[in-house]
């Protein structure tokens, strides 16, 4: 028999299935992996250091750029930490808007994960299906914030603006005939809420579509069943949270266990897996999309029936309206102070976490009483997940590395910070 020597292979940092800039040093014995050493930091921007040099509100935009496929969830943890340390309450309507957009974000994230994961292990079409629905949700982002991705929509004290009454519409062009445009604009005639409602009615069928492509697909199952098994005990040890932990059979979800905003009032279930392999985590995330859809529906119902403020009127934290600034001396001063100096947060430490699509996204805010964070530490859910890569791929074939990176839902914006 021929002698097989172990050798070392470099994977990435520009490999398409490395989900960004992951560099892996793989030690192989034939095709079997002996050791995987992820080299990260190629996208390190020093967000934590930058945040230390800016007033609190100016760092909200950085949060979008952490996990750049679930933007608003990152902002959420950050503004929650600020609100907690200031001890301010936000209006009820803002809470519902936040919950609704958290769940829209979850669907956005899971759609990208699904498309990329399936593409990595050989199913091209799912990617195209998933991006079709993502487009609609990005339009929701655009309608409320003006940008499709980096929204900066959540603000300490609420959200930047109330939901718009009109949706942006497609226009006739060289590439789109009048007939096509009319069809595309059908669901955009009403308010944003009408548009989202229309989406939530369509979306369960879309998930069925994805599932019909994958769930019983023989190739899909061969690539995911029994790959990257993590037991419950190991999942705890490795610091897993979110779908990675739930895939291993632990019913842990911050939305249920440590509810924030209005999750207490909302009816939804937490799906959990049994084996802790890639297939279970796939099923968990698929069900999570259906549950998110359910949550969005409940939020729409509430938001349609209740109006009110969407941002606190404490002008030390939130800007006064444009009209007030022009009429009222005090408002002008508040406005000036807020945009030049910001606000000071009492000395102390707070930790706030949200159930981010990938797991627990936490923000530790240490303040020394000044207008800038003394230390801001983001707890990115992907960080411990990627740290566990070595353990998860050990003994698997080289092609399974791609499946495991896919199942971890890695995004480098949050890991490298």
């Amino acid at each position, binding site marked *: 028999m021929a002698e097989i020597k172990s050798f070392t292979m470099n994977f990435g940092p520009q490999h398409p299935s490395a989900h960004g800039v992951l560099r892996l040093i793989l030690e192989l014995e034939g095709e079997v992996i002996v050791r995987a050493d992820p080299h990260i930091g190629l996208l390190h921007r020093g967000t934590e250091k930058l945040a230390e*040099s800016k007033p609190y509100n100016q760092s909200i935009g950085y949060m979008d750029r952490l996990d750049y496929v679930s933007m608003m969830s990152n902002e959420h943890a950050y503004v929650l930490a600020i609100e907690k340390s200031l001890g301010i309450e936000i209006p009820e309507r803002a809470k519902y808007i936040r919950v609704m957009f958290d769940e829209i974000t979850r669907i956005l994230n899971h759609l990208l994960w699904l498309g990329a994961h399936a593409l990595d292990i050989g199913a091209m079409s799912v990617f195209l299906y998933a991006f079709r629905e993502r487009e609609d949700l990005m339009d929701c982002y655009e309608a409320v914030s003006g940008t499709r991705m980096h929204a900066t929509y959540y603000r300490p004290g609420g959200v930047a603006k109330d939901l718009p009454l009109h949706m942006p519409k497609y226009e006739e062009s060289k590439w789109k005939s009048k007939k096509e445009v009319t069809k595309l604009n059908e669901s955009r005639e009403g308010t944003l809420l009408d548009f989202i409602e229309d989406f939530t009615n369509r979306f369960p069928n879309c998930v069925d579509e994805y599932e019909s492509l994958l769930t019983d697909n023989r190739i899909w199952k061969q690539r995911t069943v029994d790959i990257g098994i993590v037991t419950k005990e190991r999942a705890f040890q490795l610091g897993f949270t979110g779908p990675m932990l739930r895939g291993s059979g632990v019913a842990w979800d911050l939305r249920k266990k440590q509810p924030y905003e209005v999750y207490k009032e909302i009816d939804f279930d937490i799906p959990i897996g049994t084996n802790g392999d890639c297939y279970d985590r796939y099923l968990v995330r698929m069900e999570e999309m259906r549950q998110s859809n359910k949550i969005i529906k409940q939020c729409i119902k509430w938001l349609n029936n209740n109006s009110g403020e969407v941002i606190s009127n404490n002008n030390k934290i939130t800007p006064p309206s444009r009209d007030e600034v022009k009429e009222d001396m005090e408002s002008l001063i508040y406005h000036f102070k807020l945009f030049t100096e910001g606000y*000071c947060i009492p000395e102390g*430490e707070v930790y706030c976490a949200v159930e981010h699509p990938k797991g627990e996204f936490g923000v530790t805010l240490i303040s020394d009483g*000044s*207008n800038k964070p003394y*230390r801001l*530490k983001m707890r990115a859910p992907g960080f411990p997940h990627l740290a566990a890569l070595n353990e998860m791929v050990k003994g698997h074939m080289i092609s399974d590395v791609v499946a495991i990176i896919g199942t971890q839902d890695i995004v480098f914006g949050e890991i490298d910070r």
Partner: protein
Amino acid sequence: MNNKNTPNNNQLKTLFDKDFSKFCFSFEDKNTVVFEEENLIEVMTLFHENDLLQFEILIDIIAVDYSDFGISEWNAKNANNKGYSRGITKDSSGRYTYETSKKNHNQPKKRFAAIYNLLSVTSNFRLNVKFYCNEDDTPSLSSVTSIWSSADWYEREAYDLLGIVFTGHPDLRRLLTDYGFIGHPLRKDFPLIGNVEVNYDLDKERVVYQPVTIKPRVLIPKVIRGNDKEEGPSG
């Protein structure tokens, strides 16, 4: 929707009185308890294997450099006639150049600390356990990788960004910064603009390092104002 296992204050008190009475500790706030550096491994093992309150998950390790704590760049209490420049000329955190970095930071009692953010899934409870490093020049703590595997990368990150050495860590390398990086970026005496920048050298036909060519600047000075309600926003 709190878990029925969540400990109440009395149970917590019993826990600390019973199991932790042999250690020296104090509560910094409701959720943060400070222990001595020497007892780190013992304390953390107890937190991990305790019957009443078992912390299965190490959520995060937050390393902090306290050398600039409570130092503002703008004296908000007394007005003077020096104008705006008093807020922007001083060398302070975020504005150090490489030359000014070492000499200017003040020395707190203990400069470095690490906060271990623990989560108990069964009891639905969080606790921050904090350790101050005794040494300021060569801060070090024992590694908890043997207790929680997830500590591996958190400790590497803390070592990389703040230079806290974790003794007993199996593979303490830099994690986030570049290969061959010098310095620890999250230390308060590390300039915000960094020390080096990279450039493509046409002659050498490769990327080279050179000293930074930009100047540090701060748009908004750091101000500390009490949360005194009497003090108006114009103060």
